[in-house]
């Protein structure tokens, strides 16, 4: 019920394309199922980024189709059968390129937002 008292006040809308980067980055530390990916993104962003299932699963399936992720059914530590996603070699390459794209965007935004002197 904690969720109810604290509505999505601090939620930030994900920029187009950043979800891919977040997923690829999260899977860098090993294979995970969708639920754990969403949890990891949420925790690591300090509860700011909450990925909705309606965006997460389409993204996972899209990334898999693009060959950046591979999936496998496994039993989780609490005995629940779940679909685990892992980075492929192409996925690792994609992660690196998304990283540099992101850095470019951050620098560009910083440049624009810099107060005029």
């Amino acid at each position, binding site marked *: *019920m904690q*969720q109810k008292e604290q509505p999505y006040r601090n939620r930030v809308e994900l920029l187009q394309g950043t979800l891919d980067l977040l997923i690829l980055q999260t899977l860098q530390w090993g294979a995970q*199922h*969708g*639920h*754990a990916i969403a949890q990891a993104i949420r925790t690591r962003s300090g509860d700011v980024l909450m990925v*909705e*299932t*309606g965006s997460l*699963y*389409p993204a996972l*399936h*899209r990334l898999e*189709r693009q*060959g950046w992720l591979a999936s496998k*059914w496994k039993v*989780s530590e*609490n005995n*629940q*059968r*779940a*679909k685990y996603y892992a980075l492929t070699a192409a996925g690792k390459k994609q992660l690196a390129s998304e990283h540099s794209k992101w850095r470019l965007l951050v620098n560009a935004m910083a440049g624009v937002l810099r107060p005029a002197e």
Partner: protein
Amino acid sequence: MAGNILRFFVQRFFRRDRLEDDLHTELESHVALETQERIHRGESPESARASVLREFGNVALVSEVTRDMWGFGWVEEAIQDSRYAIRMLRKSLGLSVTVMLMLALGIGGATAIFTVVNGVLLRPLPFPNSDRLVTIWEVPRKSNIPTWWR
């Protein structure tokens, strides 16, 4: 690379019933994991499951958007459209057969005529310098063939 992607696509297309089951199980396991977690945090099982489902949103919609990512949409639509077309043709069988016969005769006739025209008139003869070919024949020395013919 492109070939691999195509093979992946085709393989998955023929196993899309299994993909459908997989997706169902995948979303189901997401709900189960989240519910377990909430129970672990001290919620009652019923209210945990209810709030997970509420937070999850429209399961059918999530599945549909995810399914769209497989990229079979257009293939399935094409199959549906052809089925519809066949049904419609069967509905007015007489008209369909007549139209098909007319098309067959028309196309067949035109093709036959063109084949002849192409072979006889349009294509050059299959020899080098075919424009220098002459016809030679014998004529009896004395005959009553008129001179203009000779």
